């Protein structure tokens, strides 16, 4: 069974009577097998958050359907196994960090000793133990993001949905979050995330979907998406100047091969992203 099964999802927003309805997501289908990390990338306003909200039942699909572990997203049951971190999370500012995590733990049915342990574990996990007794009104943006992550994970969900998990988090913190995501994957959790930080997406995701103006325009494993069929890349370690010269000469002597570029390896997902965006703009 797929952890996430979105079929032909479309969502239109009717804002006012006169304005034209806005098609935020059109005919998006995506499946995430259990245990995979899926990254959704796309420019601002392309419908990433809308897709996630539909998956969580916060929005009702205009057409199509969303299922989580076989449960319809519009039913409460589907939410038992999901942890969600919304974009720019914010919570009751009068509660302390610890109270917030406890509150969400209780909502998931945790009580007593388990709740206490879980709360502590989560606060440790997001390194907020030192700030646990401060009210959220005084938290910084990155700290709120961390509390959001702690709250999402409190009931040990099988699927975690992260809407820009590293927005506003400092480089060290965002590295920590990346490591966390990798550890979720090791534990067999399914992760569905969206982010603008393509480098990070490339590092953690098994599969990537590119969404553009509400349409899923490209989807596949990182391998598939980023390899260019008619090109071959050598990545050499400790190659001497002489060896490089030899290789160049060798290529020059061949009739159809040409060297396009030599240098240090670069992220290629970024290039793909920009190319897709450019070709869609025409």
């Amino acid at each position: 069974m797929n952890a996430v099964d979105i079929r032909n999802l479309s969502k239109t927003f009717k804002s006012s009577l006169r304005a034209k309805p806005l098609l935020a997501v059109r005919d998006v289908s995506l499946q995430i097998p259990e245990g995979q990390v899926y990254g959704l990338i796309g420019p601002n306003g392309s419908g990433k958050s809308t897709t996630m909200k539909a998956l969580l039942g916060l929005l009702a699909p205009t057409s199509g359907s969303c299922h989580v572990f076989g449960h319809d997203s519009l039913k409460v049951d589907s939410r038992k196994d999901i942890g969600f971190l919304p974009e720019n999370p914010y919570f009751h500012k009068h509660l302390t960090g610890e109270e917030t995590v406890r509150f969400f733990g209780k909502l998931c049915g945790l009580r007593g000793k388990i709740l206490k342990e879980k709360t502590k574990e989560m606060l440790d996990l997001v390194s907020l133990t030192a700030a646990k007794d401060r009210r959220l009104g005084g938290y910084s943006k990155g700290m709120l993001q961390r509390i959001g992550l702690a709250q999402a994970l409190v009931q040990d969900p099988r699927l975690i949905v992260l809407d820009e998990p590293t927005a506003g988090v400092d480089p060290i913190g965002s590295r920590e979050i990346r490591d966390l995501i990798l550890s979720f994957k090791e534990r067999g959790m399914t992760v569905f995330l969206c982010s603008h930080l393509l480098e990070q997406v490339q590092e953690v995701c098994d599969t990537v979907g590119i969404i553009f103006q509400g349409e899923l325009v490209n989807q596949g494993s990182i391998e598939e998406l980023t390899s260019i069929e008619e090109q071959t890349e050598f990545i050499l370690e400790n190659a001497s100047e002489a060896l490089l010269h030899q290789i160049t000469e060798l290529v020059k002597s061949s009739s159809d091969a040409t060297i396009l570029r030599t240098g240090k390896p670069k992220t290629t997902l970024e290039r793909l992203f920009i190319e897709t965006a450019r070709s869609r703009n025409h």
Partner: protein
Amino acid sequence: MTFFSPSRIWVITANTFTQLVRMKVFYFLIAFAILCAGLNLLEFDTGATETSEQKLRSVKSLSFFIIRSFSIVFAIAATAILIPKDIEERTLYTILCKPVPRLDYLTGKFLGVFLLMSVAIAAMSLLLNGIIHYHTVAAMVEETARFHTAGASEQTIALRMQELSRYGVTWSLQYASLAILMEATLIAGVALLISTFSSSTLFTIVSTVVIFFIGHFQADAREYYLSKQSLGESGGTTYLTQLVAILFPDLQLFGVSDGLLKGKTISLAQMGQLALTMLLQCGMYLALSWFAFRKKEF
């Protein structure tokens, strides 16, 4: 998955209560205490020619007016901000993404306001009891002294004391406070219902205030219609008046404190009936709120 889980509702209720307390809403209790004490002192300085009963009545009248106004204003304001605040703080997303049915969420929030109002009204009523007790005892002491100098018999004095104590701390006094709580709860129910479909807090507050006034005049309006009816009007209006009677709260019913001031005693049975009316109507508002909130998108 249970649909209506008391323990989950309690979690939300307790959270709402804490949230409201930390928003420092209880500060108005201090304002209440000062207002009550201040106004009552003033009252006593000027009304030198009043009888003891009149004095006690005016103390009650003023205090109940203040308690009632505070409760209604509080019920409307606190309930109207509940959902918008959660949307603004984006807590609603995270709460509804946990396995929390929307009905549980609404019920929990509503009960949170109810809990807070109960505590606030209990505190105000405790203070009121104290004030009334103090004035009754003072009046008793004063009158006993007066009777003694006039040479009245012990029996006359005892009778007079009994009469005075009816204006003091009585069950009816407590019932009147309880009726205020019920009225405030009902108004909170209306505010909750409106806030589930209104797009601004201001709209919620204004419409609830309008309904509050309708609630106070609907009994008169109904009587007027019924009297017209008996003069041979069409049957359509009866359905309309019945619908109005069901949808809008009849707040005149809850004016127990007014009756008390006119010297009526209030029976437990009467309170039971009021409680039943309130529960049914609140249940209806909650059901309607859920209906509007069920499919709401965020």
